[in-house]
């Protein structure tokens, strides 16, 4: 299998309360070129799991392998797009996209590569702008171009459109679909939006919380482009919502009871 999450667990150690398990025994196999979403309520550990695939978080139990090599640290085979703006403000748009290429290619080549991907996200005109001059949606497009520029095998996206307004989000969904079809990348996409997950993915992995675990795995074979009023899409949304409702209530109840006991 292309990307393999094998019996993986994550726990944090705290001197006061001992160790805290975010999740354990997570198994997940992802095929090449698949678009897979991980969907779950806050606190289920979906972003932590993604960071572990990126190599940014240590793996407490189990192993994660990409094309049979074990992941221990970040590497150029995995590109990541974060929710919070992570472009470098001291570089212009073009230089930001060239950032991951500094070590591997000549400057001229890096420039050409950067421009290819800036064209893909329709931002060639803005290559000499600085990031503070761009809107949130444009910044995320630059971040996508930057992650793609180093030609990763997997694109990891951690709620990349979570901070954007509704309309911008829809535009970026369409763009991401085009990019995915054009580049044939494997994409692992973390989100808490049911609609977003169903609209974009081949497969939606639903996680529950306390303890974090996988509670369902949906294959979405609705033809693209998917419309929101498509009967299959609506049915799927209902199914997932039904599954998640219990989980979200669990989180809410716990948060409320914390407030009373404190």
């Amino acid at each position, binding site marked *: 299998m292309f990307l393999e999450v094998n019996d993986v667990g994550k726990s944090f150690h705290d001197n006061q309360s001992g160790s805290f398990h975010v999740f354990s025994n997570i198994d997940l196999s992802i095929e090449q070129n698949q678009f897979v979403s991980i969907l779950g309520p806050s606190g289920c550990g979906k972003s932590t799991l993604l960071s572990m695939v*990126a*190599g*940014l978080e240590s793996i407490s139990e189990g192993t994660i392998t990409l094309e049979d090599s074990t992941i221990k640290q*970040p*590497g*150029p085979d*995995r*590109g*990541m797009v*974060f929710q*919070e*703006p*992570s*472009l*470098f*403000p*001291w570089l212009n748009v073009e230089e930001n996209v060239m*950032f*991951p290429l*500094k*070590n591997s290619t000549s400057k001229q080549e890096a420039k050409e590569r950067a421009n290819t991907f800036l064209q893909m996200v329709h931002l060639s005109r803005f290559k000499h702008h*600085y*990031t*503070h001059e761009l809107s949130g949606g444009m910044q995320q497009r630059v971040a996508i171009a*930057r*992650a793609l520029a*180093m030609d990763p095998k997997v694109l*990891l996206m951690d709620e990349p459109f979570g901070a954007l307004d509704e309309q911008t989000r829809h535009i970026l969904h369409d763009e991401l679909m085009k990019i995915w079809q054009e580049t044939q990348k494997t994409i692992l996409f973390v989100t808490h939006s049911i609609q977003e997950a169903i609209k974009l993915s081949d497969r939606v992995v639903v996680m529950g919380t306390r303890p974090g675990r996988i509670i369902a795995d949906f294959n979405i074979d609705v033809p693209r482009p998917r419309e929101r009023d498509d009967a299959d899409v609506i049915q799927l949304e209902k199914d997932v919502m039904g599954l998640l409702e219990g989980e979200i209530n669990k989180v809410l109840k716990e948060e409320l009871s914390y407030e009373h006991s404190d």
Partner: protein
Amino acid sequence: MNIAIKRLLFIIVLLGIWQGIYVAGLYPNYIVPSPVTVGTTLVEGFVGGDLLRALAASFKHLLIGLSLSIVIGTLLGVILGKSKQADETAGMYLIALQSIPSIVWVPLAILLFGFTETAVIFVVVVGGTFVMALNVRSAIHNVPPQFVRAARTMDTKGLQLFYRVEVPASVPYFIQGVRLAWAFSWRALMAGEFLSNGPGLGYSLSFAQDYARMDQVIGIIIIIGVIGAVVDMLVFSKLETNVMKRWGLLKT
């Protein structure tokens, strides 16, 4: 009303009150000279070259001292910012040192170096170094963690991570540090020169005091204030605003 006109009017009123006190003759002329006398003294000082020479000497001390304190402060700050061990061991003392008024270092400098320019420069260096170090230290502590995470996913680590991400991300705090170091050094410079054997603006001030030249004392105080304000406004404030804007820390 235009801001410039408001400020001009304020000064004119102030000069008027001063002139009023002078004309009323409440104090002898050697204690309250007229604004015109002070103005004339200043012009004479510049034309005669005394003030220019003092100014040049002061700027020389400042330039050497401030440069040294920026370099030393940055080195100290980087060590404290990068090494948790160093920070836990020495960080607290840095804050203690920073709180010592710079004039306190003057006797130490004079005993070490005698009544020399080296002593003055030493006081300037001490005046600027600690505030610079504290700012560089917090600059490194305040590098946004998402920059580091993003860079790590792009195969950037170790020394490269430091100079390609942490250093540029620190620039806004670094500039703030330089601005503060300048302000502290400028104060330290005056304290150091005041107790030195010259040359320098501070020395001219103490010389004027010895000869009971109130017109010179007031004139030099005005020069010191004007230089402080002008350098801060024209150089550092502008620099800081530009950098903050570029780094997206300031909404335009």
